[in-house]
């Protein structure tokens, strides 16, 4: 089986890789590019642990083929912080103790960033429904939702300055 040559921009960097036609974007990220921050919890699009942002849109990378990444802009959890400056969602997850095991955390953070990018002032209910595609078995979501709403508030305050 021949491999396909794919070019994509991942976390701002132009990248090229070879992938088999059946490999998902998640397989490529994790196994070919060693970007293991995106997690595989189900490979059926139900848990959201593999959430990435493709051309501004939140997707489960397990539901997209690697070859479909050609020419796309892809953001993963590894690209959210700028150097040693965490993204506000990341910082608020730490401050609110919004993670326990931390496995669903990259997907939740990517999904929350996509939410705030689209809706800078989400209500609790909007945040809960937006994040309903990201399973967390540890926290009961309480501190997760608090962290996301607090991050959104902080980003609004920063934008207003």
């Amino acid at each position, binding site marked *: 089986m021949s491999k396909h040559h794919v070019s994509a921009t991942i976390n701002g960097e132009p990248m090229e890789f070879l992938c*088999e036609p*059946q490999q998902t974007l998640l397989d490529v990220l*994790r*196994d070919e590019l*060693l*970007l*293991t*921050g*995106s*997690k*595989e*919890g*189900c*490979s*059926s699009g*139900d*848990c959201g642990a593999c959430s990435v942002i493709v051309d501004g849109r939140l997707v489960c990378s397990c539901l997209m083929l690697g070859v479909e990444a050609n020419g796309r802009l892809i953001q*993963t*959890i*590894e690209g*959210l*912080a700028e150097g040693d400056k*965490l993204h506000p969602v*990341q*910082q608020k*997850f*730490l*401050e*609110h*103790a919004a*993670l*326990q*095991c*931390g*496995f*669903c*955390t*990259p997907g939740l*953070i990517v999904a929350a960033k996509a939410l705030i990018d689209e809706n800078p002032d989400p209500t*609790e*209910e909007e*945040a*809960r*429904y937006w*994040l*309903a*595609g*990201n*399973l*967390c*078995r*540890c*926290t*009961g*979501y*309480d*501190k*997760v*939702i*608090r962290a996301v709403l607090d991050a959104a508030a902080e980003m609004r305050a920063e934008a207003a300055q």
Partner: protein
Amino acid sequence: MSYLTKEELKIVGSRPIRPDGVDKVTGRASFGADLSMPGMIWGKVKRSPHAHARILSINTEKAAALPGVKAIITRADFPDVPPEKAYIGEAPANLRDLSRNCMAKGKALYEGHAVAAVAAVSPAVAERALDLIEVEYEVLPHVMDVEAAMASDAPLLHDDVFTVGVDPKPQKPSNIAKVVRFAKGDIEAGFAEAEVVIERRYTTKPVHQAYIEPHACVVAVAADGQCTIWSSSQGQFMVRGYTSRIVGADIADIRAIPAEIGGGFGGKTIVYLEPLAYMLSKKSGRPVKMVMSREEVFRASGPTSGGVIEVKLGAKRDGTLVATQVVLKYQAGAFPGSPVNQGSMCAFAAYDVPNVLVTGYDVVCNRPKVAAYRAPGSPIAAFGVESCMDELARELKLDPLALRAKNAAKDGTKAAHGPTWANIGYINTVEAARQTEHYKTPLGPNQGRGVASGFWFNAGGESSAAVHVNEDGTVTVTEGHPDIGGSRASMAMMVAEVLGVPYDRVRPVVGDTTAIGFSAVTGGSRVTFAGGMAVTRATERVVDELKKRAAITWDISPEAVEWKEGQAFPAGPNAGSFEPLSLGDLAAKAAKTGGPISAEVQLNAQGAGPGFATHICDVEIDRETGFVKILRYTAVQDVGRAIHPAYVEGQMQGGVAQGVGWALNEEYIYDQNGRLENPGFLDYRVPVASDMPMIETVMVEVPNPRHPFGARGVGEVPIVPPMATVANAIADAIGIRLRDLPMSPPRLLAALDPEPIRAAAE
């Protein structure tokens, strides 16, 4: 030394950011499936499609001929292990059964039971090889449900299981592996004395721990037998111990490195993949990575038992319980060992009752072998007992919390399973619940409020910790327990508190099996208790050593040195007049005063304080759809002393959410052939963010005098009350009692309007 009476704790009780936090919010943290090694190949498991079948033959020739296949293993590659008990994981495992659960011998006992495994150059090649392995089965009759499995004519899973705990010893094998009994007083006389007797039957379905991270490992075995296991588990020493026995290797030849663990809840206190990866690596000479799919996690790893709970409560008209009885029947899955023993002990632990009889049945059936799940056994019993308590309260027209307060176990109460309680906070949780604003808030139409309580023992046991003062005065603490929910933070906080240094000067590390002494699993709500005790004791030894080093520097007696706020001082004017020496000063001079400053402590912690909780839930019922909305939830719990309150709240909130899933949606659905129909998160529905409200927490602190800071385990008891709490709220809302879990929309609709269901059936 105890810090219970210390007037001002500077760090314990605060909420610092966890030391491993940045790694976990940036994707840097390395979980079970995240490691790759040079030359690594991929292992996959061939699983039985039948619930019960004799394995007649396995032909691996075609698979072996596939290019890229490097090794194939079957049961024939594993040694026979004697059926001895090994207390390595959370519950005693029978090593022979564990070995046969990892790889079937003779018979496949459930759909998903491993019968062979391959390792190949890529996951895709390994998958293709699985299809080429030919297994010939003789399909046998199977039995799924607990009472069907108990019947005398049920298909037998094992011809060498004879019911333990009955007299005389049975002559015929049975699916009933064990009968347990706990009794107190005279149950018949007790019920004769009762003015009201309520007798009800409840059932629960098996539910999965549903950690989001599937089981995963990388194992590399060298030609001389030395082996490294990198895996996600609740205990690297558990992985090492079980793997060594199942594959027949010396413990010293195995180094088990704990990856970060993506949730466990008890389900990662045993091994599934590591022994297979070991054999594949040994055969191929290559490092082997194995990762379960979600489907495999559901089909082949342990849920907790489904059960039948038959409760009988006898009380006086004023609510005083005079006799309580329960019969518990728990599914063990394919091998003996359901948590019915724990369930039996927990059933009435919260109450002071003179006459108690508990009978529990441990029953094998053709389902995956159950594994520990958060307070194993207790939530099943509590669903029955706490629902029945609510039915009793309604019958007597008593406030359900008043009924519980009236019968609450207190210090000095002798529990039916043996212990006499001391320093317990059950009544405190009931009283605190009654005082909440939540409990007093009025309800609207189709809304109801329920309460229920729960108990879990909490565990102590073996733990090790090492505290090293580094050359620059920073501190490294090495512990032996995987950090599953923030325990690194708690450990660092206790060290910093005892040493009197800032929290961020202490770096905690979870050591591999060669870096720290034996430590039991992260389970039983034991880490902050037992691990915390080891860490505290090790730090105290370091403080003693620091005082000695200051004494050497000043040429005075160590007794004349005082340690406070991270510095050595002369204890008084008689000791002499010296400038204080900081941790950094003493660390820098360590070579001149005797060498590196470190201490390692191993202990077997006793005196885990019992955990009690009382929960309040408001629901709203949609009569059109049968949907139950959780409007409001408050969890009250005796936490001993919260070392890091945010992570204690997190445990309470997480337990509640899991319990709500168990109550409302989660269940295994099998077809008539014993094949699981919902092995994925779409159809096995765990709570999502939009299902839950904020979860209010009330931390009651009744310190545990056996722990230096008063901690008691907090992780498990919060999953005990929710099922009954929700059921009691539903009964309050619509006047209909649901006694079978899950209380899913179809079940609720049928209860609200049974006519259409009946009409459809006719």
